[in-house]
């Protein structure tokens, strides 16, 4: 008996550890960009984000001012100043004058460079170079130093990308695309779903089969003909071919099969008695739909709304085909993709922009997870 409890304790402990490992692997990547987006941009490249709470240390090289900066003091020639020209707040722990030994001397101590020349570099970066003879030449003394900076967190990156990198504007564009592209299909699909579930008309079964078939038609099939169609309409009427109206309708079209499928299976499951008693009371189909079916279908409407919202917000392909890349139309995902090309190495910009693009879906997701999961289950388990 004792052995069996021991075993079950070990195996239970193992389960906790295993789940913990999965959770860590799945969260670390997102955590990485969140932490990085809040770091100082110099520190991002100086150390990994997992070290961001420790002081970052690095070895740098610099050149002291040339002979022209010297002054005479107590019979010696002196050059004074600060190795951090811009007054950055860093701590120097050690310095040196040879590349081979960059941390030969402790900060605050005076290094003897020979010929009576001495150099002292203090922890705050101030230095004194003195010599009994006048300095010559227009190249200053080379100096190496190991410095460490305290962890520095800032919201500067967010200000930068929102205002200067076009992310703020794209954020608005994404909202402009997403909200109508979420609401329009719901309305259209809800009416169609009701008709397909509760009204008798010829061709209904065929229509349902077509919609289920369209569920899996790859988006790629639609792109070229629609691009041609849009260009044609644009030329014919003399209007731009890339418009918000165009992308709303495109997203509506691509979202409709799933919307109708999801809504129909829910609405078909509503109790028949309610509809029939309403009909006996003289309600028309329109009244039944608006007054009974719509309120009862709220959960499934919410599920679909979340799906469509996430799908449209996160979409890149449709936006790249049907919208322009000018600042007044480019959406967040396309802007992020453009930044990946133009700012490939600027991680402070990329991580911050990426985090801004995912913040809305994450909020929607966490606040409405219940509906999202329900929609997911209804949408796929139905088929099996």
């Amino acid at each position: 008996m004792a052995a069996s409890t021991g075993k079950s304790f070990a195996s239970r402990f193992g389960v906790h550890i295993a789940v913990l490992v999965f959770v860590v692997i799945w969260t670390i990547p997102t955590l990485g960009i969140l932490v990085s987006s809040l770091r100082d941009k110099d520190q991002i490249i100086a150390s990994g984000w997992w070290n961001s709470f420790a002081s970052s240390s690095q070895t740098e090289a610099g050149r002291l001012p040339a002979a022209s900066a010297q002054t005479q003091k107590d019979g010696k020639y002196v050059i004074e100043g600060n190795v951090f020209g811009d007054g950055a707040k860093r701590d120097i722990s050690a310095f040196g004058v040879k590349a081979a030994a960059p941390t030969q001397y402790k900060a605050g101590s005076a290094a003897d460079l020979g010929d009576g020349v001495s150099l002292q570099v203090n922890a705050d970066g101030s230095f004194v170079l003195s010599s009994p003879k006048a300095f010559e030449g227009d190249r200053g003394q080379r100096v190496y130093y190991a410095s460490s900076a305290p962890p520095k967190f800032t919201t500067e990156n967010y200000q930068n990308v929102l205002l200067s990198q076009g992310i703020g504007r794209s954020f608005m564009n994404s909202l402009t695309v997403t909200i109508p592209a979420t609401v329009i299909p719901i309305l259209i699909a809800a009416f169609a779903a009701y008709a397909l579930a509760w009204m008798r008309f010829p061709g209904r079964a065929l229509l349902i089969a077509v919609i289920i078939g369209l569920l899996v038609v790859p988006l790629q099939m639609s792109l070229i003909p629609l691009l041609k169609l849009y260009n044609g309409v644009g030329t014919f009427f003399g209007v731009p071919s890339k418009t918000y109206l165009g992308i709303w309708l495109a997203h509506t079209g691509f979202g409709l099969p799933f919307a109708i499928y999801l809504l129909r299976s829910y609405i078909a499951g509503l109790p028949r008695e309610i509809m029939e008693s309403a009909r006996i009371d003289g309600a028309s189909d329109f009244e039944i739909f608006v007054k009974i079916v719509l309120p009862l279908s709220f959960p499934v409407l919410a599920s679909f709304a979340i799906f469509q919202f996430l799908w449209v917000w996160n979409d890149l392909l449709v936006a790249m085909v049907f919208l322009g890349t000018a600042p007044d139309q480019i959406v967040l995902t396309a802007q992020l993709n453009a930044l990946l090309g133009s700012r490939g190495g600027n991680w402070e910009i990329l991580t911050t922009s990426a985090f801004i693009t995912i913040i809305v879906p994450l909020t929607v997701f966490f606040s409405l997870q219940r509906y999202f999961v329900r929609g997911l289950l209804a949408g796929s388990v139905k088929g099996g």
Partner: protein
Amino acid sequence: MAAQIFSAIFVIIIGVGGCVAYFWGANKLLDLIFPSRGVSGSAAVDNLRRQGLVRPWLFVGPAMIILTIYLIYPVIETLRLSFLDRGGEHFVGFANYQWALGDHDFRNSIFNNILWLAVVPAACTFLGLIIAVLTDKIWWGTIAKSLVFLPLAISFVGASVIWKFIYEYRGEGQVQIGLLNAIIQYFGGQPQVWISLPFWNNFFLMIILIWIQTGFAMVILSSALRGIPEETLEAAVIDGANPFQIFWKIMVPQIWGTIAVVWTTITILVLKVFDIVLTMTNGQWSSQVLANLMFDWMFRGGGDFGRGATIAIIIMIAVIPIMVWNIRQANKETGGH
């Protein structure tokens, strides 16, 4: 910006209002043409019947029009375009398909797509199943599930940035700020430029999709697992089955249908994968896939619609078996309704 917010709100009201106005107005109009109230009994019955004939079409009409324009017509048109030249003007027979068979990029894409199809659905389903089983046993399982589920809300582009940061490579001797290379270096290995290693880079791109989709598989499978009757599991425990036997011989066979659904759903997704490849490598270093190749041909040098359409058709052909299966399953379901 303010102007855009204003115009956005304005068009939202117009668009949504237009929809509402259509459904409400069409319905009113129908009531006016065939009045059922305030007319004699037999006329009312007649009119009600006529209304019943017309109204379903008012309800499904907008959906049918949009589906026709945005999905049905394009499918036919894409098929037609695949037999035409780059501008879509001259008939070229199977030339585009012949080109595809001989094209190096296309072959590479097919190879990579098969690789993706072999790895991603299996990995997502397997990991999702494992996590679903494990999290069902512990008190903080719900939180754990939420966290594994979270990447599903992230766009492919956002996920690509996240993982590009993990794969980031810095020259030797520099501080590695990419997590993967930092770990490799910590254990004394050589840092690599992971996404430009031909063949292997495919797997580094797949990890991104697996990271996103495992949560999906987990949620669906977790709910299926909860549907397994308690007694079955208890009986197995009493018979002395160990956890692995319970998992493989009791749980997995019972949720086989759900596993198939998850598998096929992810398979379709994999066939359409585009954003990840575009943002990570844009098909360089032999990592091209069909969807990205198609996008490339749509716009390359002014666009070659014939070849683009051909690639789309090939993606479609790969999807058809799943489509047929879907319709069959659905028909089985709705047969009783």
